């Protein structure tokens, strides 16, 4: 039994039981922090088990409340070079981030790099060195993980750290507001863009692909 996000694909694959959910990618069960709404979607999926034969593809009768928001779709015109040092900015966000974690029973999407967040000034130095020289390394990188891959984990950590800190600070901020703040106003996002720019200056298709994943 599955939830299908692209109806046209489910029609081709023909899984035994699929519920087409009309929500944006990333919002499979409708709405975050709305347990009863999520239960409605789950119940509709479980209900497909009562059909006598298949394939079954039914539509969930839900409203797509918000327009599709993707960080990659946000146009940011404001330059974030506001003179702030990224490491200092990051340190100033720490209290907010830790409040987020405390308020959510320890739940956090920060941790891919395995580097404790209190040592992220080292992560920032790693990224700064790469942005400046086109080469850098960090002692926490496991031997079997290539530098660009580890950089992706570090950047994903920084994004999650900032997003969660911002959500602790402004619990009512919309997703678009958070994206616009991050990419438009923070020094760390400018640093990430600088890293991606450096990767894009090479002729290496894999690096360009990493750059694409970093800077959005």
């Amino acid at each position, binding site marked *: 039994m599955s939830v299908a996000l692209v109806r046209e694909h489910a029609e081709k694959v023909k899984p035994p039981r699929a519920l087409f959910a009309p929500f944006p990618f990333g919002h499979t069960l409708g709405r975050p922090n709305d347990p009863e709404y999520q239960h409605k979607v*789950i119940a509709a999926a479980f209900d497909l088990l009562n059909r006598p034969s298949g394939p079954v593809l039914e539509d969930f009768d839900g409203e797509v409340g918000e327009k599709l928001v993707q960080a990659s779709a946000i146009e940011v015109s404001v330059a974030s070079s506001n003179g702030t040092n990224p490491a200092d900015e990051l340190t100033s966000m720490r209290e907010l981030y830790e409040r987020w974690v405390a308020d959510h029973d320890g739940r956090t999407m920060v941790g891919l790099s395995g580097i404790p967040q209190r040592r992220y000034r080292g992560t920032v130095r790693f990224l700064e060195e790469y942005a400046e020289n086109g080469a850098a390394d960090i002692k926490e990188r496991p031997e079997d993980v290539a530098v660009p891959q580890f950089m992706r984990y570090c950047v994903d950590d920084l994004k999650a750290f900032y997003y969660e800190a911002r959500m602790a600070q402004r619990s009512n901020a919309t997703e678009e507001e958070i994206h616009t703040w991050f990419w438009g106003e923070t020094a760390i996002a400018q640093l990430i863009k600088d890293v991606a720019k450096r990767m894009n200056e090479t002729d290496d298709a894999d690096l360009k692909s990493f750059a694409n994943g970093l800077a959005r």
Partner: protein
Amino acid sequence: MPRLEALSEVERKSLSFFPCMEFDQTPWVPLSKDLSQSKVALISTAGLHVRGDKPFISDFKGGDPSFRVIPSNTSPADILQSHVSIGFDHTGFYKDMNIAFPIDRLQELVERGVIGSVSENHYSFMGAIRDPRRIIEDTGPQVAQLLKDEGVNIAFLVPI
């Protein structure tokens, strides 16, 4: 996902041309026992893993076909996401992982008597896989066998 016709041309083309496999037949197994007696496992394509386990690899050609075991008694504080795609908004998952990995909801369904139990393990794959052959031939059947061995009655596949 909203219907394709509601999307921008770029998004619509990207999804329309995504290499989706087409099948003529559908396997069908009737539910063997009542839902309230059934054991349920989650199969996610949200690129999840337990903190300390290996994250998924972003530049695996065709997409990382491996899977991660997520014991159902894992604290949600120890579940991480290394999904390669920037084609979806991660903010919803930051806010509440139940949006695509409904571990708390399943527990509530047990408490409400709707389902019998939650399986010992959930499983996660990476999403945005452009070449699913390794999953179809290798890692998918591995997970199917594990589910059988664990006596799972219902596999609930939840993408992101």
